[in-house]
């Protein structure tokens, strides 16, 4: 028979399976590979330590992104440098994509990642960023336009 802590551990494992990739991508895209990893870990440790509270949240990704942002302060280095990837590993990706993402302001990058890449609603993204819905939409739209212009693509 499972005891209470086993059940909590199982629930948390499922939660990590679902949330960690989204959180990790958003924080890695915002702060780079190393800081993104540390910030993701710190945010999930926070979730584990405060599981009763976090498990009941409607928007845990947005909340934990904010926690990761706060905790990343101790690791942050500016400017953010995103690694290049070989064309053999990702043949469908424009080689200039990392540079294009670096060219976005941090706010634009965060809005793009939360809304377009990770699928948060504008409301949840706005709360995670501490700005209004209008502002977050503006950042996300500008980021997308800038990215497309930089990569010279016409999609969307």
């Amino acid at each position, binding site marked *: 028979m499972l005891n209470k802590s086993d059940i909590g551990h199982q629930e*948390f494992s499922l939660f990590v399976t679902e949330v960690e990739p989204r959180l*990790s991508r958003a924080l890695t*895209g915002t702060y780079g590979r190393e800081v993104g*990893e540390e910030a993701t*870990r710190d945010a*999930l440790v926070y979730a584990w330590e405060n599981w009763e509270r976090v498990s009941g949240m409607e928007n845990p990704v947005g909340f934990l992104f904010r926690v990761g*942002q706060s905790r990343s302060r101790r690791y942050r280095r500016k400017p953010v440098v995103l690694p290049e990837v070989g064309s053999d590993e990702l043949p*469908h990706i*424009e080689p200039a994509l990392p540079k294009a993402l670096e060219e976005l302001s941090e706010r634009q990058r965060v809005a793009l990642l939360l809304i377009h890449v990770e699928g948060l609603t504008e409301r949840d993204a706005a709360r995670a960023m501490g700005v209004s819905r209008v502002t977050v939409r503006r950042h996300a739209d500008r980021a997308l336009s800038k990215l497309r212009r930089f990569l010279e693509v016409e999609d969307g």
Partner: protein
Amino acid sequence: MADVITQTRDYLEVIRTPVTVDSIVAHPVAPIPDRRRIRRGPLVALAAAVVVALVGLVPVLLQPNDPRIVRSQVVDEVIAGSQENSHYAVGFDSDGILCAEAGASLDLSTQSQGVCGDSDQAAAPAYQQVAAAAYQGDSFVALAGWVPASAENITAIYNGEIRRSLELTPIPGYDLYAFGAIEDGQARFIEIEIRNEAGEIIQRYFASIGPSS
């Protein structure tokens, strides 16, 4: 060629380092910082906020154009909180650090404080954090706090020294704003506002934390 959103997602998936659940639950539990306060029921927290506002602070209802208040400049991002023995409030814009920061409050010999960039003030709307700082001449005020859905503590700092610990209960769905302010050439005040989605102020706290408080 895939669209840029798919490309971005796939790219980040490749470069990121996955964090496993075992590495999290095995993580040593850090000491609980001050900001994680005992959670109270909403009514008790609300009552505490009202008592603090009425007794502990100077609850002055300010007019929007009150000349004593120098409104802060909104920055792109504010980092605030406590780390070890330090309390800080730092604002950034897209070009870099914009506002001041407070340093160690428990060991004044190691405190750092200063103004960065051209601005002497900063403020930011907050969801889980609230921060503000004002700097003028030799005086410096900062406010740093951690405000999740329930009442938590916000620390007001004057020249590196903790002067007040405030408790607020933000209303879910409402935004919390904080402003550092300057009077007579000295950074002396902290103002906190709770606004609804239309940006209307529904509650305002005003704390004098300067030398005369």
